[in-house]
């Protein structure tokens, strides 16, 4: 893995951590610890496979830190939400905050799927490899996860 490319993935990894942890503070800790572990034991990773590898490391770190067991409900914080350049202006900050709250409340398998594909931006195949499940499983979980999140977004819009 090329260390000079690691900072390029920080925003996506932070978003994934925020979706998993639910608080800015825990997300920062998780991302920092993930990078520390990856840097301590660098691996050979195929070109373009960096992000999937980092997501896997993030998830493993999160599990080992037992964040899931001590998770508290997501609380509003001062974290700034930013639209990607060229992003759809209709996709507003309000929707995004509601979406992250909804993701945090999903069951772990559904949450893993939507974080891998929609938050981090992996393909189904990459997500399947990172989560160690079949590609079809990713698709079905992603569908159910999006349905539940969509329900929350509609409730916010109503």
């Amino acid at each position, binding site marked *: 893995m090329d*260390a000079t490319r690691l900072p390029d993935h920080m925003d996506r990894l932070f978003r994934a951590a925020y979706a998993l942890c639910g608080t800015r503070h825990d997300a920062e800790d998780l991302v920092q610890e993930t990078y520390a572990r990856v*840097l301590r034991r660098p691996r050979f990773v195929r070109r373009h496979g960096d992000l999937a590898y980092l997501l896997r490391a993030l998830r493993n770190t999160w599990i080992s830190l037992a964040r899931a067991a001590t998770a508290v409900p997501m609380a509003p914080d001062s974290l*700034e939400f930013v639209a990607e350049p060229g992003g759809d202006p209709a996709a507003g900050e309000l929707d995004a905050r509601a979406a992250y709250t909804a993701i945090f409340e999903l069951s772990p398998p559904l949450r893993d799927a939507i974080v891998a594909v929609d938050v981090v931006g992996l393909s189904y195949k990459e997500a399947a490899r990172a989560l160690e499940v079949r590609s079809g499983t990713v698709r079905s979980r992603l569908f159910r996860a999006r349905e539940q999140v969509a329900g929350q977004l509609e409730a916010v819009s109503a």
Partner: protein
Amino acid sequence: MSQALPPNAYERQRRVARTLRDVGPMAPPALRARIEEAIERAEQRRRRFLSPQRLALAGALASAAIALAIVVPGRDGDATVAAAADLSLGDMSMPAPKPAAGRPQLLAARFEDVAFPNWGHKFGWHAVGMRTDDVGDRRAETVFYEHMGHQIGYTVVSGRPLAPPDDATHVSKNGVHVLLYRDPDGRQVAVFRRGGRTCVLSGHVMSRHTLVKLASWKGDGAVDFTA
């Protein structure tokens, strides 16, 4: 067992995917700085380890160096991003570097393993000169570019990354994280990292997006500034 799809299922799915793709939290600057510093330390360790000259002494010397790096906080003197940005106000002391042989997207000038870009053919910003300076206890090299009467300086600062200004705006494009601010003289300043070094673009430009465009340009991934 078949499951009935809710009405507008496709639109509902698309809305979620679009929202999560387009909007989200950014990694806070303090976290970014900590991780980039950790990456830089790891890179330094790796370079030391791979150096043939030092291989024989790797055990003792690398351990001592790492221990020192951890125990003794690095002194930046008065090296700051603002001081680096001010270098673009200085006079040019050397002629403009030529395009790199066989790599027209780059100039034949490189500092701390970071090559300076050749934006002339793509954006019309032509290199017109360069200078070297000390910023605090760091070395810095600046290449000046001009386009339609405007001049900007591209400065690369040696050593580990400098702390970004607190009030900078964050923009991410082409995988390059750029911090933007306007200095007291009204110049636009863009700060980003390349090859673990702090790079500063500054000058009087019509729009700060010009600096973002230049800083994030990688020729659709074809240009590697640190190779």
